[in-house]
């Protein structure tokens, strides 16, 4: 067991003298290190000058870094074509080409729909309008109006049938690759179970397709 006694006045003075000695020694070491570095630097400079005086060579590298673009366009769209008057059981098909026209591919895409003016047609999730989206591996063949579409290639489901209105609805099976285009067919269905309360209703629907960039990679 170690006992600790309070320091005396003489003891404090002695301790102060010790601290000053330590600081002087540290300062002296620092000065020695700096002088050594200066000497090495001077030697290296002299050697370099001597070399430069004999042979010369240089290289200039220009490294341009530019960010890419992420762009979603719809070069062809029938989504602005309305339908009136519709009855229960009716379907409305509208084609849309969704192009990933930037230089950066997408990681995912979503759909947000809204209605203004709104009515029972879009507020009733069961008997109101339902939406489904299909993708054709090539451009849809259009007939009409009223528009209907057939696919000469293969069809995949982008969005299974669901209530029309939704926010950030995940879309599947899209190409998403920069420079590519997905040929989509949006189908709205007015369920046959809609009763007379749906008569003389009107809704105007807007569709917003959104996408976010691919994951970051080493470039």
């Amino acid at each position, binding site marked *: 067991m170690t006992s600790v006694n309070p320091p005396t006045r003489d003891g404090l003075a002695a301790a102060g003298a010790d601290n000053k000695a330590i600081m002087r020694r540290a300062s002296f070491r620092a000065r020695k290190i700096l002088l050594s570095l200066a000497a090495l630097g001077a030697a290296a400079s002299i050697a370099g000058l001597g070399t430069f005086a004999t042979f010369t060579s240089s290289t200039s590298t220009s490294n341009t870094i530019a960010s890419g673009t992420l762009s979603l366009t719809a070069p062809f769209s029938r989504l602005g074509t*309305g339908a009136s008057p519709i009855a229960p059981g009716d379907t*409305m098909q509208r084609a849309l080409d969704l192009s990933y026209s930037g230089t950066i591919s997408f990681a995912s895409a979503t759909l947000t729909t809204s209605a203004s003016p709104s009515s029972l047609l879009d507020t009733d999730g069961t008997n109101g309008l339902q939406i489904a989206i299909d993708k054709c591996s090539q451009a849809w063949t259009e007939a009409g109006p009223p528009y209907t579409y057939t696919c000469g290639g293969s069809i995949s489901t982008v969005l299974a049938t669901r209530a029309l209105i939704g926010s950030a609805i995940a879309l599947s099976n899209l190409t998403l690759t920069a420079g590519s285009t997905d040929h989509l067919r949006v189908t709205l269905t007015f369920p046959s179970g809609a009763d007379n309360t749906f*008569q003389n209703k*009107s*809704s*105007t629907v807007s569709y917003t397709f959104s996408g976010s960039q691919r994951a970051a990679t080493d470039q």
Partner: protein
Amino acid sequence: MRIRSRRPWCERPSLRRGAAVLGSALAAFVVTSLAVAGFTASRTGGPMSVTTKRIFSGPRSTYPGDLRDASSGAAANKTDQLDYDDATPAVTGAWASAFSASRFYQIDFNSPRPGGLPTSSVNFNIKYASKGGGGSGNACIYKIEVRRASNDSLLGTLDHSASPLCSTGTTYRVVNEDISAYVTSTDIANDLRIKVFGYETGAKAWNIEYATVTGTSYSSWTLFEATVTDQSTGAATTTTWALANAEGTGAGATIYTDTNNWPSANPSTSRYLQFTFDHADLPAGAVVQSVTLKNVWRDSAAPGNGGTLCNYFDVYNGATLVESHGGNTQATALSCNNSATTWQTDTVNLTNVDTVAEANSMTIKVYYWIAPLCGGGQNPSCVKSVTDQMQATFTYYLD
């Protein structure tokens, strides 16, 4: 003098903890910002306007209020007494001389309107007076109740107890009561009951020239009675318009038996039953998809001896012949029936009735005759027809 050594900030515990927290927050912010801040793009399509039809396609059935019996060769008015202002009033029982909560005249109306439509200008229209007779007074309406026919629920009351609506003796009074506040949709109009509480100051009967409900849903329409419960005496008597339903019972109040035997061997163009569907009330612009006529009938008695009652019918739009169904021989007749118990149901599509105008003023003339002949010797008996139901179903929509 105490000398405190100056320690670097990184060796102070409190500052070290603060720095750690700050660093963590900064790191989290940077990570989150990087996750959210990537590129995004969006594209908006539409707007796409979608509007539904004003009236969805569907069948709407009704029956004729106007019936003319020309079985004798001269047309007699056998119209529903409550439907028209035609000097053929319905006669009630004897009322009390003052209001009684147990005395009323109740009318259930037909249901021909497409459902789900808003209504406006809905009125209950009644023309009534004292039937007269010794000691008679004035026919007075004390209050009118508007109810749902299906469950008798009360929609509203038009209370005239403070100042009853009275006729002056046998002089008719016309009352048009606005019931728009209670009948706000065709769903209610199709399920409507009006209950009139009244009295006759001399405790006598009323004449009711007509009692209808009119309104508007894209076009004006009129409802006719389907069933009446006359409880003016305090005891209820219920009758249904003979042509309204196919009860199949043959009970007197549910059928119409023509007044004369039908001709022998051949139909006569002057001997027929005429049914007018003057209140189908299809709105202008409606698209008529189909019209079907149903006639449920039998013989008043079996003709016997190989005889049978046959018929064919013509469809008119006003005076214009639209189409005919069946011929004037037993072989070509629309149908024949030799039974007084088995009902014959003829259901015929009226393909030429394809406009609103034709649907809204459709008249049917049914010609009956006994084949091969009737009357005399061992021949079949000449008989009448009994009609249980005459119904037209209009399938249409309105864009």
